[in-house]
C-alpha cells in the first residue's frame, strides 16, 4: 500500500476515537463464580454458566458493578440510575452462548471526559459511555500438531468481567490518542479498577480513524483498527492509517467503512474483509438479568471510597508542594509512587528537596537493582529523615549521597549510619576555621592568585577544605569564611 508523504498529510485533519476494553480486577467472572486466574490450564475455570450449558443462568457480580461504577466516576461520567443488559448476537467458537451479554441503548454511564496535555496544550476528550459486558474465550490457531485443520478453544477467559469505554471522536493526532490512553490507564490504576496490564490483555484498544480536508465540516468515512495491544502499536497503527487513508483519498479512491487489523511485524493495517452483515448483531434486552439499579446512595458510598485521582493529585503537588509540572507528573505516575513521595515530603518537611532525592538518587538505586518503588529497601520515613538532615544542615549533600546507598543496602535509618561513620556536618566553627587556616598556609601561590583578581581559584581552595574535612564541612560556611579571610 502506498502511503501519503508528510506534505500531503498536512492538508488533512485526522479524526480519532478510541474504544478501550478493560478487565475488572474481580476475583470471579462477571456472571458466575468461576475464579479469574491468569495462566491456568485450559478449560479448568469453567462451569455450566460460562460454558453456556442449557438451563444455566447468569448472576451479576456485585464487585464487578462496584468497579465499573468507580471507573465511570474516575472518568467523570454520569452513572445512570438504571441500566440494562442486552444480547449481542454473533457466532464464533470462543463464545459458546452464541451471544455476548453487553449493554446497548441503556449503558451504565455516559457523558464523561479525560483531560490530556500534548506539547503543553491542554485538551478535554469526551467519554461517550462506559458499559459492562462479558469477555469471550481464547481461540488458539497455532502451535498444535493439527493446527492446520483445527482451532483449539480455551474458555477460561470466557465470562471475564469487562468494561468498554468509548470516547468521542475528539482526538486529532496519534499523540493525543496516546495521551488519552495514558491518562485513562493511570486513572483506572489509581482507583484500582484494573491492573490495566496490556501484556495480559487486561487493557485492549481499538481505534476509529478517519481523515478529512482541513476546514471540512463533515468527518470522512472511518476505519476501525483492531489489535492495538501496546501504546507503541497504537501510535504506529494510527499514523499508518492516516497516511494510508490520505493516499487513498488523494488518488481518487473512496474509503469504505471496514475493520482493519494492525500487523505488528509489518507495521501495516490489513482489511479483515468481514462480511457485510457481520455487524447485524440483533441486540435485544437480556431476559435472564434484571435491570441494573445504582442508587444515589450506593454511588455516593463508592465515590467516598475513591482515592484522589492522578490529575487532581498532580495539580495539588504543584500548588501545595511547589513542584514543577514535570516533577509532579513523574511523582504521580503510580499510586505507590505518589504515596511514597507524600510521606517523604511530610517527614522531611522539605517537599522540593524530597522530590529531588526521590526522583534522583533513590530512583537511580531502584533502577539499578531492578526494583519498583513498592519494593524499596529504603522506607519513605527513612528517606524523609535523610532529607531532613540535609535540609537542616546536619549533613552535607555530599555525605548524604554516601549514606543513601548504605541505607539501600541494609534498610537502616540514616541516623545510626551517620553516627557510626562520623559524618555529621562539622558544627564546631573553630575546627572549620582551623582547617581553612591550614589550607591558606599550605597554598600561598593560589592565595596570591586570588588576591590579584583570579577569583576562579576559590573553587580549588574550597575543594581543599572540603577534602581535609572529609566532606563534613558545610560548603556555604566554608565559602563565606574563606572569602572573609582572603579579604
Amino acid at each position: 500500500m502506498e502511503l501519503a508523504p508528510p506534505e500531503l498529510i498536512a492538508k488533512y485533519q485526522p479524526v480519532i476515537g478510541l474504544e478501550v476494553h478493560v478487565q475488572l480486577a474481580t476475583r470471579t467472572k462477571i456472571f458466575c463464580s468461576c475464579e479469574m486466574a491468569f495462566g491456568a490450564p485450559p478449560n479448568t475455570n469453567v462451569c455450566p454458566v460460562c460454558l453456556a450449558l442449557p438451563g444455566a443462568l447468569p448472576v451479576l457480580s456485585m464487585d464487578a458493578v462496584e468497579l465499573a461504577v468507580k471507573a465511570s466516576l474516575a472518568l467523570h461520567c454520569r452513572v445512570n440510575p438504571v441500566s440494562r443488559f442486552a444480547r449481542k448476537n454473533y457466532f464464533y467458537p470462543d463464545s459458546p452462548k452464541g451471544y455476548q451479554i453487553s449493554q446497548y441503548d441503556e449503558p451504565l454511564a455516559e457523558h464523561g471526559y479525560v483531560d490530556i496535555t500534548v506539547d503543553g496544550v491542554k485538551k478535554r476528550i469526551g467519554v461517550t459511555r462506559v458499559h459492562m459486558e462479558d469477555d469471550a474465550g481464547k481461540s488458539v490457531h497455532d502451535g498444535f500438531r493439527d493446527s492446520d485443520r483445527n482451532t483449539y478453544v480455551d474458555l477460561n477467559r470466557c465470562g471475564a468481567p469487562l468494561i468498554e469505554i468509548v470516547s468521542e471522536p475528539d482526538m486529532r493526532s496519534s499523540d493525543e490518542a496516546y495521551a488519552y490512553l495514558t491518562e485513562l490507564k493511570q486513572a483506572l490504576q489509581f482507583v484500582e479498577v484494573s491492573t490495566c496490564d496490556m501484556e495480559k490483555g487486561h487493557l485492549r484498544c481499538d481505534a476509529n480513524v478517519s481523515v478529512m480536508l482541513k476546514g471540512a465540516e463533515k468527518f470522512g468515512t472511518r476505519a476501525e483498527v483492531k489489535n492495538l495491544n501496546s501504546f507503541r502499536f497504537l501510535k504506529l497503527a494510527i499514523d499508518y492509517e492516516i497516511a494510508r487513508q490520505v493516499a487513498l483519498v488523494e488518488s481518487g479512491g473512496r474509503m469504505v467503512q471496514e475493520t482493519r487489523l494492525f500487523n505488528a511485524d509489518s507495521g501495516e493495517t490489513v482489511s479483515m474483509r468481514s462480511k457485510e452483515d457481520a455487524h447485524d448483531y440483533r441486540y435485544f434486552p437480556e431476559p435472564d438479568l434484571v435491570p441494573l439499579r445504582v442508587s444515589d446512595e450506593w454511588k455516593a458510598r463508592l465515590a467516598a471510597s475513591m482515592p484522589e485521582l492522578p490529575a487532581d493529585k498532580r495539580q495539588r503537588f504543584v500548588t501545595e508542594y511547589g513542584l514543577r509540572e514535570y516533577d509532579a507528573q513523574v511523582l504521580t505516575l503510580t499510586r505507590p509512587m505518589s504515596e511514597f513521595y507524600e510521606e517523604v515530603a511530610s517527614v522531611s518537611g522539605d517537599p522540593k528537596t524530597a522530590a529531588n532525592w526521590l526522583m534522583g538518587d533513590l530512583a537511580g538505586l531502584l533502577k539499578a537493582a531492578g526494583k519498583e518503588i513498592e519494593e524499596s529497601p529504603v522506607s519513605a520515613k527513612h528517606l524523609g529523615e535523610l532529607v531532613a538532615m540535609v535540609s537542616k544542615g546536619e549533613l552535607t549533600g555530599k555525605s548524604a549521597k554516601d549514606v543513601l546507598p548504605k541505607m539501600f543496602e541494609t534498610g537502616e535509618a540514616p541516623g545510626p549510619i551517620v553516627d557510626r561513620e562520623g559524618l555529621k556536618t562539622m558544627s564546631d566553627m573553630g575546627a572549620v576555621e582551623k582547617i581553612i587556616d591550614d589550607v591558606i598556609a599550605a597554598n600561598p601561590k593560589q592565595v596570591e592568585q586570588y588576591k590579584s583578581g583570579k577569583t576562579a581559584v576559590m573553587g580549588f581552595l574550597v575543594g581543599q577544605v572540603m577534602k581535609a574535612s572529609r566532606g563534613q564541612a558545610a560548603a556555604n560556611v566554608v565559602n563565606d569564611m574563606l572569602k572573609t579571610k582572603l579579604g
Partner: protein
Amino acid sequence: MKLTEKEVRHVANLANLNLTEEEVAKMLVDLDGILEHMDRLKEINTDGVAPMSQVLFDAGDTASLRADVPMPSLPNADALLNAPQPGQGYFKVPKVIERS
C-alpha cells in the same frame, strides 16, 4: 404478507440456520403470523406504561447481585464431556477463522 422470503433467508443466515425450501415457506407463514400478532398488540394504548423486558420484583438495589467469592469450577474432564472433539484439555473445532 409483512415479510419476504429474502428476509427469512437473511434472518436464518444470521442465526446460522440452513433451511430447506419447504422450511423457508413454512417460516415465512409462521414469522408473518408473529408480526401480525405484534401489530395487534400495538393497538393497545400503552402511554404512561414503562417498557418491561424482564419480570421485576420489589427489592433493594443489590438483591439480584452475587458476592464476588470464587466457587469450585468443573474439572476439565467434565467440562469437555459434551465436546464433539476434545484434545489437550481444549475444545477442538474445525479451523474456521470466519464463517462462510
